[in-house]
């Protein structure tokens, strides 16, 4: 087993673990009670899973095909940059659109700050 094969394995394992993460976060997406908690599953673990997979793929390709893909690197950077942002945006949108928090939620710190001021916001599209 030479080095490259080992590195290949590392890549593949990264991919595999990434896929596990993705799977778990998908399960989380189903099982969590409200959109805010689900967004955790989606953005945190899923992002991690994707990043791991992509990194794994990058490594694997570098080793097996001897090709360093700038596009893949860019992709990794991109996902790294955007995934949290989109998660953030969705949650914020959800909150502004007055999506109900789960019953088990204890405190809504933003209630007065946002909903207090703007009753005019549309109640549209919430289901």
């Amino acid at each position, binding site marked *: 087993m030479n080095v490259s094969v080992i590195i290949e394995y590392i890549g593949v394992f990264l991919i595999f673990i990434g896929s596990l993460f993705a799977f778990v976060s998908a399960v989380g997406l189903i099982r969590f009670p409200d959109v805010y908690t689900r967004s955790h599953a989606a953005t945190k673990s899923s992002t991690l899973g994707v990043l791991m997979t992509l990194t794994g793929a990058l490594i694997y390709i570098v080793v097996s095909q001897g090709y360093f893909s700038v596009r893949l690197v860019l992709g990794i*950077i991109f996902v790294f940059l*955007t995934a949290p942002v989109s998660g953030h945006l969705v949650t914020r949108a959800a909150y502004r659109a007055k999506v109900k928090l789960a019953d088990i939620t204890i405190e809504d710190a933003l209630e007065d700050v946002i909903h207090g001021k703007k009753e005019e*916001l549309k109640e549209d599209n919430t289901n």
Partner: protein
Amino acid sequence: MKINNVILRTVTKLVVFIILTLAVYLFFAGHNSPGGGFIAGLVLASAFVLLFIVYDMETIKNAIPLDFKKIAALGAFLAVGTGFGAFLFDVPFLTQAFDYFQVPFFGEIELTTVTIFEAGVTLAVVGVVVTIILSISEDV
């Protein structure tokens, strides 16, 4: 109503830069790997769309003072115009010429009329997509 978009805007700036680079890459890579005029145009257009979404129309229009309809027309003109080039050389309409040149330092370079054609396609696609999106959103 004020919505704090700082995070989004910061990211967007970077992202748009990536997209533009990608678009240019896709445009030139198109003949030999996935990509090409169409896709480049679409990707480019999506960069504009992103800008419009994240910022607003007026800001972007001021930043990029272009009439996208004319860009689209120009693109179509280029695309159709390369066809008319055939009349000059008495070859069938839309005959594309290509050749390879050995250039020092860069190695083999391919020069082809397809590039002009593809540039037209790209411009047309960008122009049209942006025109469509803008026209509808402007009409509030």
